[in-house]
């Protein structure tokens, strides 16, 4: 029993290693209310939520007439994806954004 528990914990830990981000991490996507800004994180390939925030700040600078400046997440939260628990715990900011369904 102890062995099984160790195996399960090991699977969860290993699946959360950055090695698997490229393959398994969801391409978290974001948008503003009218879709004129859209960002895809491209899991494990140079992009990040911080990068998204930078891009959105630049977008707002260049589009000062945008009224709703809120950034929304367009991905749904899937807590059962144990291989993304690391992201949910240590990079939880992106998950606290308001959800906007993609049209």
């Amino acid at each position, binding site marked *: 029993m102890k062995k099984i*528990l160790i195996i399960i914990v090991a699977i969860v830990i290993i699946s959360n290693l950055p*090695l698997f981000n490229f*393959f398994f991490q969801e391409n978290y996507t974001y948008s503003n209310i009218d879709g004129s800004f859209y960002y895809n994180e*491209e899991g*494990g*390939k*140079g*992009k*990040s939520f911080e990068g998204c925030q930078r891009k959105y700040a630049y977008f707002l600078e260049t589009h000062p007439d945008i009224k709703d400046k809120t950034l929304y997440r367009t991905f749904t939260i899937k807590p059962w994806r144990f291989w993304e628990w690391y992201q949910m715990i240590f990079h939880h900011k992106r998950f606290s954004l308001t959800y906007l369904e993609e049209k």
Partner: protein
Amino acid sequence: MKTKLISMLLLLSMIISCKKDQQSVNSKSALQNSDSLQTLSLAQVKDWYGKNASTPSNTNSLNATSTAGSNKTFALSSVPFAWEKAQSVNNTKGNYWLVYLDGQPKFKNVKQGYRKLAFIRDSTGKIQSRILEIIPDAIYLQRKQKATVADFTGRVFIYDQNYKLISGDVYGNGKLMGKIKPKLTSSATTQTSTTQPSKFQTDEVSVQQDCQWNDSSYIDGDGVFTVYSELDCTTTIYDDGGGSGGGGGYTGSTGDAGGGGGGTGSSSSPASQPSNLPGENKDAVNPKALMKCFGNITDPNAKMTVTVYVEEPWPGTSFDIGPNSVGHVAIGLTKSSGSTSITQTVGFYPNATGYAKLNAPSKIVDNGGDLNYNVSISYSVSATQFNQITNYVANPPGTYDLNTFNCTNFVSSACQAGGITIPDAMGVVGLNGATMSLDKAMTPAHLGGSIEDMKGQSNVNTTGGYTPNSSGPCN
């Protein structure tokens, strides 16, 4: 402790089972209403098929019968399928058998969906066959990657054994939301016929359903242009507001009461690979439109720079995998003249998800402003070199391969097109068991390491930073 562990395992198995195919399911299909009466064995089906599919003189033969609406004849016996893959599907009245058929329908000018052959018993107990053309909605398939019965969205066309369209169903999120019937006269392709409003009213709201038969067409899996009529319904809810104001309405597609459908056999079937749809990858950019901007600055007196940005997987080491996963390499192109400057920073990506990223169609993504690179190297180039590089970037290779042609290869090849050789990016990435040799590939880690080794040179940056914003596309 033991109980907790068992509970944990149960929970895990439930999670895993959530991902399992919902194929084995049964009855919520277009054939549910067919007249299956009792258990139908595969031997009976084979026997019936042997007699009917190979006897040309039989009037009920599956051979050489004219396809409705065309002069083409259809011979089912000429369409190969594998009996060993036949599946028995249960419904409330017994069971029916399904086999996959080769051939693909062409819907909206795109080959999509798949075909199945169903063997059923009719109300008289006779065996009959039905050809099903299942066309998942393209956007639904793009999002889900796989069609399942539970949430099937798309169309199911049902043909008789002579390949004559009998009927069909339109599903939305697993619910029946429309019907399909053969178009008897093929005069128009998009014409609205009768409207059949039905009204349901409560004290405060009234619900009105408007259904319209719309004519449309597609090319069936046998290559025949098929015109059909589709019953599309919309539901409008008028809220009387309980006496305080009013008006307002909500319009949306309806699910037929008691529907509960799903594409017949639309489970883990070999649905065609989802094709790329316009706007599907909103982050992908048109490299031609980006490169076109450089034409806004004339070459004479212009200064042109090419910069290679590397985000190392594990900065400072040569590990190919690290906190930054596999890392990334992007190329930055800048053309300046006087106070005008245009910069485009792009990267080469797989246009896929999951394991498919190993080898997938490629896409160019704007890496301007958001790539946190560790090292970079810049080159001043001539107008000729710059144009050669922009030409290469504007027409990138169509396939991404993690080992043989990844983001590093792309940047290396782009620079090579302009006669620039970037620092050595080749490194050992594994052992090839088949050839008993070391597998080598260009990687961000090795390129980053080589650039770090050049620290001190004026064109090398080892302090990192964020890539400059791209100027965006030009039309």
